């Protein structure tokens, strides 16, 4: 602060100098890594870089190859199935659990602790546990068969048709606790008087939830949706641990495609193109939300 005074009329650049110095890491991360890195990746996705980035442009050739690749198509299909189902189920299960937890129940803390602990675990741990639970030789399938239902078949991790559902089960186990927590916080934010008014009006509980409470929780739903969705696009570790993309390439996902092409197949251009597609997916989710969230705030 003495520095500012000594300069007489403070120079624009030196105003708040300490604050600017302290913010250098943040500014560097924001501009160089987040902004610069993203632009760099998009830029190099139009080159035919292989082991090292090279500036030889090939137009949209990488994208053509990407969309011609069956592995990428499977990745996208998987992401779509996994994404849609995981959105629906985590919202529905998360909200139902939160609604049950909101009934002034006993042992609320115990139940919350149980529902949320998987969220503390890594995707690697989650994937490995469910790999074991879903093991057809020893896991759920064999247990059900040993109970007498010998034709019972549930081996998602070894069946290319349904492998993505196996991953979905694990992901829901890991993530619904978080959704429940967010929803519960939303429910607790609803004015107590609304519930009282509905009771005086004689509106049954399910109708109050459906027609009054859920519409009121729209912002919570939107935020939760964005959080789940941006997590879905990033899904990687879970697949690596649970199936390594198999059987065959039946459970491949885009994030894994990117990693494999960048760091193992030494085909950087493909990796960049694929990651640009991921960026596009996120942008499609984020931009409308950001517009609603921040555009709306300015208005009102």
């Amino acid at each position, binding site marked *: 602060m003495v520095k500012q005074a000594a300069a007489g009329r403070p120079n624009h650049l030196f105003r708040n100098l300490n604050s600017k110095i302290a913010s250098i890491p943040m500014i560097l991360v924001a501009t160089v890594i987040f902004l610069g890195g993203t632009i760099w990746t998009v830029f190099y996705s139009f080159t035919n870089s292989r082991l090292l980035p090279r500036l030889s442009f090939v137009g949209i050739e990488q994208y053509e190859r990407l969309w011609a690749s069956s592995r990428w198509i499977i990745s996208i299909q998987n992401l779509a199935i996994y994404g849609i189902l995981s959105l629906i189920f985590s919202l529905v299960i998360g909200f139902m659990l939160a609604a049950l937890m909101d009934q002034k129940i006993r042992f609320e803390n115990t139940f919350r602790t149980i529902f949320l602990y998987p969220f503390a675990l890594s995707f690697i741990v989650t994937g490995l546990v469910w790999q074991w639970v879903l093991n057809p030789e020893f896991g759920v399938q064999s247990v059900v068969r040993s109970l007498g239902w010998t034709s019972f078949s549930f081996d998602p991790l070894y069946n290319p048709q349904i492998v993505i559902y196996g991953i979905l089960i694990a992901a829901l186990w890991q993530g619904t606790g978080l959704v429940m927590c967010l929803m519960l916080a939303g429910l607790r934010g609803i*004015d107590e*008087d*609304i519930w*009282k*008014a*509905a*009771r*005086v*009006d*004689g*509106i*049954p509980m399910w*109708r109050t939830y459906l*027609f*009054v409470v859920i*519409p*009121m929780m729209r912002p919570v739903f939107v935020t939760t949706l964005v959080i789940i969705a941006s997590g879905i696009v990033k899904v990687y570790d879970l697949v690596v641990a649970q199936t390594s993309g198999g059987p065959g390439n039946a459970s491949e996902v885009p994030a894994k495609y990117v990693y494999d092409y960048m760091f193992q197949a030494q085909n950087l251009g493909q990796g960049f193109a694929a990651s640009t597609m991921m960026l596009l997916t996120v942008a499609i989710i984020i931009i409308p939300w950001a517009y609603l969230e921040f555009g709306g705030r300015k208005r009102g």
Partner: protein
Amino acid sequence: MNSNVSITNPSVSIRDLSLSFGAVSVLQNLDLDIRDGEFLVLLGSSGCGKSTLLNCIAGLLEPTDGQIFIKEKNVTWEEPKDRGIGMVFQSYALYPQMTVEKNLSFGLRVAKVPKEEIDKRVARAAEILQIGPLLKRKPAELSGGQRQRVAIGRALVRDVDVFLFDEPLSNLDAKLRSELRVEIKRLHQSLKNTMIYVTHDQIEALTLADRIAIMKSGVIQQLDDPIHIYNRPKNLFVAGFIGSPSMNFLRGELAEEGGRVVFRTHGVNFSLDRYDAAEPLRAGRKVVLGVRPEHITVDGKTGGETHEAVVDIEEPMGADNLLWLKHAGHTLSVRIGGARRYAVGSKVELSFDMSLASLFDAETEDRI
């Protein structure tokens, strides 16, 4: 049993009502009868149990013990919707995603009331409350006063005998509050329903109520009409709670002077000849004398007993002028006409209107 009960054919009766959350007792053996068409105000500071009592009447809270009758029917175990009540909340509690019209009709539609009947009732409520032009709007597009009108309308369409108001004006600014206060009074005069109204605002209580129940720690301190509450407070708490600025309290004792019992504080005697005592006054009793600021006359030509005091602070308030005076070790507030001004430090003569004063036992704090 409390004595302030039992009216023949009451609209709402509360019998021996208690409610406790665990070890904390909120209401204690409360009895209350409310007449048909009466406007009863439950008044008290926060945490006194007034809202809890209202929620018990509505059926939103279960009492630990006791009974509630509405229209002579025991409704203690009834659901709120079956009690024949409508309720208005402090936060309005309108359903934010529905239009005003839907807000009014939602409960009726759920109860499967015929469409024509719903339309009729909504139209009537809209007319009474003058919210006709707002029917297609959503609550977010309404002002606070309009929202509260809709909230009242929601109680109105239920076509019930008893209206419950839970601090309905507390979220409004001062000007709107006084406007809506008048409207609620007008509504009561035209509908003639029983209304139970919870507030912490004494002005609302005094202006609206047929009777006021002043509550403290879950017990009704006094149940009476506003005039009696104001002029004949039953105990020190009620006396101090009602009135702004607060009643002047002088601690002293009863003494004898020339064969008469007088009030004595700091060696100064006050004649009690005109005081209307409920029991014989005995010398030696420690008491508190309460006199409202407007019941002390400054430099009046009353000819009676006067006391000299010194002006300490003057607070001109427009219509009134409030003087803070030093007298015999006490600070007294006195309300005089706004045009009369006194310099700080000047000496004045005070005369106390003992016929409107209150005398309380210093121990029990009850009125003598």
